[in-house]
């Protein structure tokens, strides 16, 4: 998780940060299930994990649609 956080914070382009956020979100789903097993309340936490997966998907989709047509956001590696 810390590795993905590194990519999120220091990523050279905006879409690199988006990759990091997506990876962290999909790890958090598993982490929520593990927390549910630890607290013996898995019946509640499985719903939370499902909702979190859905929210992560919608967030990444919306962000990548938002950055569709924006040139000039990236500091390096442009196509000429």
């Amino acid at each position, binding site marked *: 998780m810390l590795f993905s956080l590194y990519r999120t914070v220091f990523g050279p382009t905006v*879409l690199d940060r*988006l990759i990091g956020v997506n990876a962290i979100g999909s790890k958090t789903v598993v982490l929520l299930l593990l927390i549910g097993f630890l607290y013996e309340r898995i019946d509640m936490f*499985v719903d939370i994990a499902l909702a979190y997966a*859905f929210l992560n*998907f919608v967030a*990444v989709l919306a962000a990548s649609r938002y950055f569709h*047509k924006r*040139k000039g956001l990236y500091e390096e*590696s*442009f196509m000429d």
Partner: protein
Amino acid sequence: MDILVVLLLVTGMVFFLGASVGIIRMPGFYCRLHPAGKLDTLGILSMVMGLALYNLHHFSLESLLLSIKMFLIVFFVFLASPTATHSIVDAGMRAGLRHWTQKKRKG
């Protein structure tokens, strides 16, 4: 049963670790996207499958329902995660992000 659960969890952990190292170490943007996609599908598949099998230890109708819900998570992630990855690639292509080639100045 226990051995299978441990095997699935360890496989998922290996996928998570490998994908994190790949996200850090890969040279280009599209290269970095590849381990991220692997992490989403394969890591979540094996870890949630292992947790669902572990949940079936004390077998009852309730735990069976919970395991079915976990399979629902796996199913949803299998639909959603390639869509999200493809959407990120699409954004990168349309914004004109150049892909990494061997003969750029650093490796």
